[in-house]
């Protein structure tokens, strides 16, 4: 009988299939085999949903240390660390006033590894803010925002704002004194358009400030409603927004032709052939890369060998992994040596003195100590608008992809350090020594006090210097170099004053040891 003869065979086959199942599962998951040939390396990248956001081959210029300093990858790595540690903190954190404080205390003192995870979360957030600012400076100084990358620069600015929003909402969650008064001050900065509507007498009919505060707090005072809103923003809305924007940001890098490089990058690399040359197309190009690898640009890589490129696996990926590990190492070292602060339980009737925001907001806090609307909303919005307009005003091509490229170059940047540092230091010194408007003219209209913030003067003087540079070099890029450098300097000066030289009642002190005793 044929059936009886087949039975042992089917069983044997079944047993053999069972035996090979683990290997076949691996083979079907990673269809390409080990990435040892160029072709397998290409399909390793485009066959993997997580890696295929990269091109299969990377230009040598992109892999030079000085091209990016790894700052973008460091920012992304810091975000990944905050993401993982943040989810871990959510196991114990309870977003309700007073209970929140106790749960943070538990995380810090009771939960095994809780202190390290909280410290890592806090330090990675700080590293992310620093890295994102430096990454922006790198993109600016190498003129990476120019065509076709204008829109990605805008996405980057949105990412900067969301990063700062995440940091701010995160500071509020422990419900300690720092948290409570940071919410209070933040919500009132949101309300500060009232300074203008009040002065115009239209607050009754048109009150955007009051509405903003109400939407943030969900109530007219800071309580459970406000905390749950900030929690929602911190763990859900802003991270989702950040992830979506990051996806666009990374995808655009590739679609805009990879990282920016100078027009003569290939010639430059060819002249310095110190790197071991790597044969391109070691086998017939059956399918080295997809059509998707064709990017917009003057010379699409169609019908040409991809000159001066190396397979992304391993060259790019190992470099990226290295930067990520370095970021993790820095965060870990900081977390081991420095604990995240936790002050006393929030006390709504006694503000801390001085009540200081996290360091990256102390520049803004220094400005709101003169007038809330201009310092907290007006000038920051003007700065963001100015940053966003840069790629649409500078349509030049000279110096793209070069550090401090463009008319003026490094000499102009160095020269801009002088007005950049001196203007805010002198204006602040003047305001600290001689007071500001209301001290001289007690009956001055509020609208003038609101509008004439020291930051208004600083911005105007910076703008004047920038316009002079545009004229002197006949180049918008020169003006942008001057202005960007000035604003970086202004940020550093104001932040330094806010962090180290302001004491109780926001009075100037040379050192915290001079602060009066309570």
């Amino acid at each position, binding site marked *: 009988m044929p059936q009886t003869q087949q039975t042992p065979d089917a069983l044997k086959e079944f047993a053999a299939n069972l035996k090979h199942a683990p290997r076949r599962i691996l083979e079907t998951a990673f269809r390409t085999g080990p990435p040892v040939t160029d072709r397998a390396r290409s399909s390793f990248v485009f066959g993997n949903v997580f890696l295929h956001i990269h091109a299969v081959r990377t230009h040598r210029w992109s892999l030079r240390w000085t091209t990016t300093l790894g700052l973008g990858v460091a920012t992304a790595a810091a975000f990944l660390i905050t993401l993982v540690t943040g989810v871990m903190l959510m196991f114990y954190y309870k977003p309700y006033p007073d209970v929140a404080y106790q749960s943070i205390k538990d995380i810090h003192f009771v939960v095994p590894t809780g202190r390290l995870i909280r410290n890592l979360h806090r330090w990675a957030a700080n590293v992310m803010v620093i890295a994102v600012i430096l990454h922006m400076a790198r993109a600016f100084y190498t003129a990476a925002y120019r065509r076709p990358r204008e829109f990605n620069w805008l996405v980057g600015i949105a990412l900067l704002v969301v990063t700062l929003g995440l940091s701010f909402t995160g500071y509020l969650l422990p419900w300690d004194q720092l948290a409570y008064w940071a919410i209070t001050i933040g919500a009132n900065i949101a309300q500060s358009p009232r300074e203008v509507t009040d002065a115009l007498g239209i607050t009754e009919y048109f009150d955007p400030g009051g509405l903003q505060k109400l939407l943030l707090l969900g*109530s007219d005072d800071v309580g459970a409603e406000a905390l749950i809103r900030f929690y929602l923003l911190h763990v859900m809305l802003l991270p989702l927004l950040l992830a979506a924007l990051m996806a666009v940001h990374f995808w655009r890098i590739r679609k805009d032709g990879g990282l920016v490089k100078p027009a003569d990058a290939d010639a430059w690399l060819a002249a310095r052939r110190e790197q071991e040359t790597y044969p391109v197309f070691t086998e017939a190009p059956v399918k080295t890369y997809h059509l998707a690898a064709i990017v917009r640009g003057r010379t699409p890589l169609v019908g040409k060998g991809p000159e001066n490129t190396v397979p992304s696996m391993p060259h790019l990926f190992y470099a990226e992994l290295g930067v990520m590990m370095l970021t993790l190492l820095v965060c870990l070292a900081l977390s081991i040596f420095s604990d995240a602060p936790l002050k006393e339980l929030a006390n709504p009737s006694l503000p801390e003195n001085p009540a200081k925001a996290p360091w990256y907001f102390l520049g803004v*806090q220094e400005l709101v100590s003169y007038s809330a609307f201009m310092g907290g909303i007006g000038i920051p919005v003007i700065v963001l608008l100015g940053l966003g307009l840069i790629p649409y005003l500078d349509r030049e091509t000279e110096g793209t992809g070069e550090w401090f490229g463009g008319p003026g170059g490094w000499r102009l940047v160095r020269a801009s350090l002088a007005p950049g540092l001196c203007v805010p230091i002198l204006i602040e010194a003047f305001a600290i020594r001689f007071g500001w408007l*209301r001290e001289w003219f007690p009956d001055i209209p*509020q609208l003038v006090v609101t509008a004439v913030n020291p930051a208004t003067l600083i911005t105007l003087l910076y703008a004047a210097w920038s316009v002079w540079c545009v004229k002197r070099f006949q180049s918008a890029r020169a003006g942008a170099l001057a202005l960007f450098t000035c604003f970086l300097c202004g940020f550093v000066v104001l932040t330094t004053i806010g962090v180290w030289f302001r004491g*109780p*009642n*926001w009075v100037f002190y040379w050192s915290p040891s001079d602060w009066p005793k309570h």
Partner: protein
Amino acid sequence: MPRRDWLGLSSLATMASALLFGLIGLLRLPKAAVLPSPSKKFRVELPQALAQGEAFVPPGRSVAIFRDAEGVYAISTVCTHLGCIVKPTAEGFECPCHGSRFHGDGTVARGPAPRPLPWLRVSVSGSNVLVDEAAVVPQGTKVS
């Protein structure tokens, strides 16, 4: 009209209206019809020994209550700049956050505060005082 055009237009129109109405709902959602705030009115007994011009701050409240020959009055201690709690001093009030100073009647002496500290409605019965933190009265309103 070809069937495909009609389908395309109608699906676009429904999507646009769904987004619009969804957005309107979303905008209305975060502003509750009744705000979950505690009552703004509170009753407190003034200490007998309260000297003229000396501030009495009830525990847990952001109000300074004064008594002089003309009567009782209450001034909010929430800074009009960014909402910190000002401290009553001999000269008036001072804010710990950004250095605003106010005179004894709540008007701005120096600093970034845009408005005077508001005076609040009080009603007096014996030594008991009822303060309504939500009701602002003109500066100088004293109740005996």
